[in-house]
C-alpha cells in the first residue's frame, strides 16, 4: 500500500466513527458550527476572478523586481527629486524602496487573497492533550533517575559530590577575572583620580571651542580677550593645549571633561560664587558637563542667567554659584576660577575644586 492509500484508509475509518455533522478535512473534523459559503464557493465566476487576482498580484510582483533592477542600474545615487509631502528625497532610495517593497508586498497579498478566497474557510477541530505526562512516563523518569543516582554513586561518594560542587562553583571565576582588562589601567592611576582631574590648572589659557572636531587647527589656538566677550554673551571654551593632549592620548576624553562655558554679566549681577574673586570683571567660567548624567550644556538665558540642560532640563543659576534651581541634577555646576595673563588673555587661575560631570560612588572622598 502506498502512503496515500494509508491516508485514505485512515480517513474512511475515522469518517465512519465520527459524528454525522462533522466531515473530515485531512485528519481533523470540521467544527460543528454554522458556516456561510463564500461567493467564491458558490459562484464559479467569482472563483475565476479571485484566481486571476492572485495570479495578477504574483505577476505584478515579478514586474516590480525587474523595475528594481532597472532602477538600481539607471538612477544615479546623487539624484534628488521633489515629492510632495516627502520633500527633496534621494530618487534612488525612493524608487528602490518602492519597487522592492511593492514586489514583496504583492507576494504576501496574493498568498493571503488565495487563502481567503480559494482555500477552505471552514474551521476544523483538534483535541488538546494534557501537558502533564502519563503516570507510566513519570514512573519511568523517576526510575531512570534513581538508577543513575545509584550507578554513579552520587549519594554514596560524599567526598566526590562535595568536591564536584566546589569545582563547579569555582570554574566560572576565570571567565569573570579575564574581564578585568576591559580597562587596561595606566600605571599609578585609578578611576577616581582620572575623574577628578582635568587639564585645567593655574595659567592655562582659555581658547574658544569653535566646534572643530579635533581642536588641532591653529586658528583655534588663539586665546580670548575679556573685551571680546560682550555682556550677556556665552562662549564654549577649551584649554589651549587640548589639541596636543588629544594627539597624545588618541581620544576625546580630555575634551569630555575640560569643556567649559564663559558667560559675561554685570559684576553687580553676580550674587554669589563658589570662591572669592573667581570671576574676571563679571566673566564667570563653569564646567559645561552636566552634573546629572553628563550632557554638555549650552542653553543660556541672558536675563535670568539660567543654564538649561537639553537632555533632562536641569537648570543652574550661573549668577548664584551655579546652583541647581530646577530639574533632576543634585549638584551645582563646578566653577573654574579665571583671570588674565600678562598678554591680556583669559586663563584659569586654578584647577577645578571638585570633579566635573556626573556623580560617582567615591566622589566625596576625593
Amino acid at each position: 500500500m502506498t502512503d496515500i492509500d494509508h491516508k485514505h484508509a485512515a480517513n474512511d475509518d475515522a469518517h465512519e466513527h465520527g459524528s454525522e455533522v462533522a466531515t473530515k478535512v485531512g485528519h481533523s473534523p470540521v467544527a460543528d458550527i454554522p458556516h456561510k459559503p463564500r461567493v467564491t464557493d458558490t459562484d464559479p465566476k467569482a472563483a475565476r476572478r479571485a484566481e486571476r487576482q492572485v495570479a495578477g498580484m504574483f505577476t505584478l510582483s515579478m514586474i516590480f523586481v525587474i523595475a528594481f533592477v532597472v532602477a538600481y542600474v539607471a538612477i544615479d545615487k546623487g539624484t534628488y527629486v521633489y515629492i510632495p509631502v516627502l520633500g527633496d528625497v534621494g530618487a534612488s532610495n525612493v524608487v528602490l524602496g518602492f519597487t522592492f517593497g511593492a514586489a514583496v508586498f504583492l507576494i504576501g497579498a496574493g498568498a493571503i487573497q488565495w487563502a481567503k478566497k480559494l482555500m477552505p474557510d471552514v474551521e476544523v477541530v483538534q483535541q488538546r492533550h494534557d501537558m502533564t505526562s502519563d503516570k507510566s512516563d513519570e514512573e519511568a523518569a523517576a526510575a531512570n533517575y534513581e538508577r543513575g543516582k545509584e550507578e554513579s554513586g552520587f549519594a554514596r561518594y560524599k567526598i566526590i559530590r562535595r568536591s564536584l560542587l566546589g569545582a563547579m562553583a569555582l570554574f566560572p571565576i576565570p571567565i569573570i577575572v579575564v574581564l578585568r582588562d576591559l580597562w587596561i589601567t595606566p600605571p599609578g592611576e585609578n578611576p577616581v583620580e582620572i575623574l577628578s582631574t582635568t587639564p585645567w590648572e593655574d595659567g592655562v589659557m582659555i581658547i574658544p571651542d569653535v566646534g572643530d572636531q579635533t581642536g588641532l587647527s591653529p586658528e583655534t589656538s588663539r586665546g580670548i580677550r575679556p573685551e571680546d566677550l560682550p555682556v550677556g554673551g556665552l562662549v564654549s571654551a577649551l584649554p589651549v593645549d587640548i589639541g596636543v593632549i588629544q594627539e597624545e592620548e588618541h581620544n576625546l576624553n580630555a575634551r569630555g571633561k575640560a569643556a567649559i562655558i564663559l558667560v559675561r554679566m554685570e559684576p553687580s549681577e553676580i550674587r554669589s560664587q563658589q570662591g572669592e574673586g573667581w570671576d574676571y570683571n563679571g566673566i564667570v567660567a563653569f564646567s559645561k558637563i552636566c552634573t546629572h548624567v553628563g550632557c554638555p550644556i549650552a542653553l543660556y538665558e541672558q536675563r535670568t542667567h539660567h543654564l538649561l540642560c537639553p537632555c533632562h532640563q536641569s537648570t543652574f543659576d550661573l549668577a548664584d554659584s551655579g546652583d541647581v534651581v530646577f530639574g533632576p541634577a543634585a549638584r551645582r555646576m563646578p566653577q573654574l576660577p579665571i583671570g588674565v595673563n600678562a598678554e591680556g588673555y583669559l586663563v584659569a587661575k586654578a584647577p577645578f575644586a571638585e570633579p566635573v560631570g556626573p556623580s560617582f560612588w567615591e566622589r566625596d572622598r576625593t
Partner: protein
Amino acid sequence: MTTTVNTNALGDAETTPKDDPLEIAGGATAKYVDQRLGSNRFLGRNLGKVFPDHWSFMLGEIALYSFIVVLLTGTFLTLFYKPSMVEVMYDGAYVPLKGVMMSEAYASTLDISFEVRGGLLIRQMHHWAALIFVAAIAVHMFRVFFTGAFRKPREFNWIVGVTLTALALGAGFTGYSLPDDLLSGTGLQIIRGILQSIPLVGTWAAFLVFGGEFPGTDIISRLYAAHILLIPGIILALITVHLMMVWTQKHTQFPGPGRTNDNVVGYPLLPVYMAKAGGFFFVVFGIIALIGGLVTVNPIWIFGPYTPDQVSAGTQPDWYIGWLDGALRLMPNIETVLFGFTISWNVLVPSVIIPGILFTGLALYPFLEAWATGDKREHNLLDRPRNAPVRTGIGVMAIVFYGILWIGGGNDIVATTFNMSINSISWALRVLLIVGPPIAFIITKRICLGLQRKDRDKLLHGYESGRVLRLPHGEFIEVHQPLNYKELAVIQGKEDIAVLPAPEKADADGVKNKLYPIHNLQHKLSSFFLRDNVDKPSKAEIEAGQAHAAHTAELEAPLHDYEDLDQDPVGHGGVLHHPGMAMTNQEQIDQRH
C-alpha cells in the same frame, strides 16, 4: 473516499494526485528525506496542525517577521560598516561634512547612506524594522497579558517573552549607538552617567565598559559585538524556544462556538495557515521596505559626528527608550552622602531601580496572580479583559505609568509645541505619575464590571433590539432578541472562580494553623481579585432568559409577516409598522392622492 466539503467553486480539490507529475516528484523527495530523518512521522502529525484565528494573534507574528527583516538588513549593513573609533577626515559624497574629523564608524555610516546604492534603503529598513519589532513585542505582550494567556501552562513562555522584551530594548539601544553621531553619543554619555551612579561598583563598571574614561576608543567595537552577535544570538535562541512552546502547548483561543478548554478550533497549518502566515511575512517585509524607501529615519548626517563637548537641543531617543529618559527627567534631585560615599538617587532610581522593579514584576506576574487567586487549572481559553477586572486594571495602571514617563521623555517637545513652562509640565507629570495609575485602575475596573453586568443582562434578557413595540392593550415594550450563537458562546465562555475561603486560626482539634497569616493574605488577595465579579447566571436561567427574549421577539413576528409580503422591504428605524401604515414617504404621498 473522503468527502470534499471544502472544494471551492472551481472544484480544484477533485484533481487526482496520482496524475500530477509534481505530486510524484514531491512524494519521492519526501520518501528520500524520510528514510534518512523519519520526517514523515513529524509531517503526518503536524501538517494538519490547527491554529486558531484572531486578529490579535498577528501581533506576535509582526514581531517575528520584523526581526527576520532586522537580521537580513543588518547582515547587509555589517558588510559596509566599520566599528572603529579611529579619527579620520571625511572625504565622501556628503558635501557639508567634507574635511571634518570623525570616527570611522560615523564615516562608514555616511558611506552606507550616500555611496552604496540601496544602502540608505537598507539602513532605514533596518531602523524601521527595529522600531516595529519593539512596538510589536509591546503590543503582543499587552494582548497576552490582558487575555490571561500567560496562565498555566504558559508561565515559562511568558518569562521567555519578558526576557525577549528586555533583549529587544538592548538590541535597539546598542544599534542606535553604532553610527557614533552626535545624538547617539549623547545617549552613551547618559549611559556612562547611569553606570557611575550604581553604588560600590559603578565607577569601575563605567571604566570597564568604556575601556577607561568616557568616551574612550573602545565602546563602539564593544557595542558592535553585543549588537550583531551576543544579543541577536540570544534573541534567536529564545524565539526558537518561544515558538516551540507555542507549538507543543497549542495556541490559546478566544471563547466561541464549539471552542472548549480541551480543543482548538481553527485552520490547518497546510494550506490555510501556511498561506496566511507566510503571506503575512511578505506583507510585513514589503511594508517595512516601503516605509524604508519613503520615510526618513535617523538622518545621522544632520546630527554630525560625536564629540563630548557638544549637544543639540530637542533631541529624542528612539521611542522605546523615551520612558527611561522621562523617568530621568521627572525624578527629583536627591543625592545622599553616606559615610563619605555618594549615592545618586536621582539617577539610580529612574534608570536602574524602576526598570528593575517593572521587569521583575512583569516576569513574576503569572505566579503572583495564580497564587493570589488560588487558580491551579490549565487555561487554554482566553479571558476577555472585562472578565478579569483586577488584572485588566493592573495592566492599564502599568500602561498609564509607562505613558506618563514617556510623555516626560518629551517634556521639552511638549513645552515648545504648546508654549508651556517646562517646570509646570514636569511638576504636573510628577504628580500624575503618582495619582494617575491608581485612578486608571479604579476607572478600568469599574468599566470592566459594567461590561460584565451588561453581559449578564444579555444572557438573562437577550439583547436590546432598539425597537419599541406597542402591544394591543396599549403597553409599550422594547423588543429583546435572543443572542446569536456566536455571541452567546463568547459570553458564556466566562469562567467564574470562587474567592478562597477564609482560613481558620485553629482546626477543630485546637491545633494552631501556623500558616494562618499567609493563608489569610491569600484569602484577602483572592477576595480583592474576584469578589466584585458578576457571576454568570446558571444554565437554566440563561435558557429561560433567551427563551423569554425569543418570546418578545415573537410578538413582533406578525409585523415581520406583513413586511415579508412587501416586495421592497424598508428599514423601520425604531418605528414599527402596522397593517395599513405607509411604508415610505412616497407611499404617504400616494395615499393622500
